[in-house]
C-alpha cells in the first residue's frame, strides 16, 4: 500500500514537471532540455534554506520559485536571438551548466554527496509526514498546476502562445511582442518546476545532483512526447505511463542493472516509435513540425 502511495506521489511530481514543460514546449513550441535544471534549483534552494536558516516550508517554496523564475528568464531571454534548432542546444548548455554548479560547488551545495536530512514540510501547523499526507499535498499542487495551466492556455495569452508555436513571424505581424511572451512562459514554467523540486526534496529528505541531470530533462520531455504536446490531459496520462512503466519492470524479476538498461531501451524505443508514427503523442495537437512558409532552413 505504501508502495502504491509512493508511486502516486511520484506521478504527482512528474505531472507538475511535465505540465510546466508542456506550457513552454508543447504550447509555445520552445523545446527545452533545461527543465531538470529548474527542478533541481527549486529542490536545492528550498532544501538549503530549510537546512541552514530553518525557514518555514512556504517561504522556502516561494524563494525556490523566485530563483527558478529568474533562471527561467535567463534561459528564455535568448530565445529570440538564438534560432530554433540551436535553441535546443542552448537549453542543453544551460542544463549542463546548472548541473555542473550543483555537482561541483561543493562548499555550497554539498557536491556529489548532496544534501541529507531535509526536514519535512510544516504548513500552517500541519506536519506533512506520512505518505497519505504527502499525497494530499502533491495532489492539491497538481490540481493547482492544472487549474493555472488551463486558465493560461484557454486565455488570449494562450492563443498568442499557440500562434508563436506555429508561426512566429505571423505572431509578430499581429502585433505580439514574441520575445516577451517567450520570456514569460519560461518564467512560469520554471517556477512551477521549482515547486515540484521543493516537494520532492522534503519527501525523499535527501537530494543529490544525479536526480537533476540531462537524462531527467529528456525523461520529462518524453512524457510530453508520449502524452501529447499541447494537451494537458495527455500530459497527465503520459506521466502515469512513464512513471509506472519502470515499476512494472521491477516485478519481472530481473537484476537491477539489467532492468535499468532494459527500461532505458524500452524508453528509447517509445521515443523513436512515437516520433516516427505519432509525433502528436496520445492526445496532443502539436507534432513538433514548425509551421509557416520559409521556416525550413
Amino acid at each position, binding site marked *: 500500500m505504501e508502495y502504491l502511495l509512493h508511486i502516486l506521489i511520484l506521478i504527482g511530481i512528474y505531472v507538475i514537471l511535465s505540465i510546466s514543460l508542456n506550457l513552454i514546449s508543447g504550447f509555445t513550441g520552445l*523545446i527545452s532540455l533545461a527543465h531538470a535544471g529548474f527542478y533541481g534549483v527549486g529542490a536545492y534552494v528550498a532544501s538549503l534554506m530549510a537546512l541552514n536558516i530553518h525557514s518555514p516550508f512556504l517561504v522556502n517554496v516561494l524563494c525556490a520559485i523566485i530563483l527558478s523564475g529568474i533562471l527561467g528568464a535567463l534561459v528564455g531571454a*535568448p530565445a529570440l*536571438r*538564438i*534560432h*530554433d*534548432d*540551436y535553441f*535546443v*542546444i*542552448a537549453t*542543453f*548548455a*544551460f542544463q*549542463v*551548466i546548472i548541473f*555542473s*554548479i550543483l*555537482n*561541483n560547488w561543493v562548499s555550497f551545495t554539498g557536491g556529489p554527496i548532496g544534501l541529507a536530512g531535509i526536514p519535512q514540510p510544516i504548513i500552517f501547523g500541519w506536519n506533512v509526514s506520512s505518505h497519505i499526507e504527502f499525497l494530499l499535498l502533491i495532489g492539491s499542487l497538481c490540481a493547482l498546476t492544472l487549474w493555472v495551466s488551463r486558465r493560461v492556455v484557454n486565455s488570449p495569452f494562450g492563443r498568442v502562445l499557440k500562434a508563436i508555436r506555429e508561426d512566429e*513571424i505571423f505572431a509578430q505581424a499581429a502585433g505580439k511582442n514574441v520575445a516577451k511572451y517567450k520570456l514569460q512562459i519560461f518564467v512560469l514554467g520554471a517556477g512551477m518546476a521549482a515547486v515540484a523540486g521543493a516537494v520532492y526534496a522534503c519527501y525523499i529528505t535527501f537530494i543529490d545532483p544525479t536526480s537533476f541531470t540531462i537524462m531527467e530533462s*529528456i525523461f520529462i520531455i518524453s512524457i510530453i*512526447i508520449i502524452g501529447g504536446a499541447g494537451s494537458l490531459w495527455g500530459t497527465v496520462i503520459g506521466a502515469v505511463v512513464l512513471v509506472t512503466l519502470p515499476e512494472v519492470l521491477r516485478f519481472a524479476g530481473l537484476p537491477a*542493472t*539489467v532492468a535499468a*538498461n*532494459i527500461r*532505458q*531501451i524500452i*524508453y*528509447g*524505443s*517509445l*521515443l*523513436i516509435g512515437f*516520433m*516516427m508514427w505519432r*509525433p502528436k503523442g496520445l492526445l496532443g495537437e502539436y*507534432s*513538433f*513540425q*514548425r509551421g509557416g512558409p*520559409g*521556416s525550413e*532552413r
Partner: protein
Amino acid sequence: MFLQLIINALVASSWYVLIGIGASLILRTCRFFDISLGALFTVCPYFAFLLKEWFGFPLVLSIVLAIPSTMLLEVIIYTSMYSFLFRAKASPLIILLVSLGLYIILQNLVSLIFGDDTKIIRPIEVQEGLSIFSAKISSIQGVSILIAIFLITLTIVLIRKSKIGKALRAVAIDPELAAVSGIEVDLVRLWSMVIACGLAGAAGILMALDIDMTPTMGLDALVMGLVAAIIGGPEKVIGVTLGALFLAIVQHIGLWELGPKWHEAGAFVILLLFLLFRPEGLIGRKVKKATV
C-alpha cells in the same frame, strides 16, 4: 608545464575534432543534430573489443574490422529510419529526438552486453612515449594527433575534389536544387552519415586506446564535438578544427585554475557566448535569418 597543457589540449581536441567534423557533416547535409553519432563513437571500440577479447583477433585486425562494421550499422540505421524521416520531410526536431532515442537504445545495449565497467583494448605493456622539455606524450597520444591530422586532410580533400564531396556540398546548400540537377539526395545523405560514422568510430577507437572505454563515453565526446563545430563554424572542416582547438585550449589552459571538473560547464558557457554573440562561429559567415 605549459607545454604539457598544450599537449593535453591537442590530444583531447584530436578526438573532438573528428566527431565534430562528423556531426557538422550531418548537420550540413541532413540538417539536424545527430545524437546517435555519439553511440556509434562508443560502439566502434566495443566492436574492436568484441573481436579481440571474444574471438581472439589481434588488436590491429580488430580495429580495422570494427570501423567498417560500425559504418555498416549506420547504413542499416539509415535505411530503416532516417531515410523514411527525410522522405516524410520530418522537422529537424523530430529527427533529433529520434536520434536521441537511438542513442539511448544503442548505449544501453552496450551496457547490457558488456557491462558498465571500464574496458581496455590497448596493449598491456607500458608504452614508451616521448619527452619534450619535461612534457610527456605517449605514443598513442602522438598517433592520435597524427591520425586526426591525416583524417582532417583526407576529409577536406574528399569534400573539395571528389564527386561525392561536390554532391555533399550541393545537397548542403540546396537539396531541392541538387535533386533537380540529378543528384540522388537520399544516397548523398547516406554517404554523409556513413563518412561521419567512420570519423566518429575512428575517434572512439583513438580515445579508447588512450583512456579506455565506458558505455557513456560517446555522449560527452559528441557534445564536445558539437560545441567545437558550432563555435568554430560548422560550414567548413577547418572551422570545426579551429573550434576544437579553441575549445580544448580554453578548457585545459584557461580553466587550469578551476580544475578539470569545470571543463564541461566551461565548454557550455563558451558555447552560449558564441550562440548569443557570434552564432556563425569563429570563421563562419553571417547566417541569413528566416526570410519573410
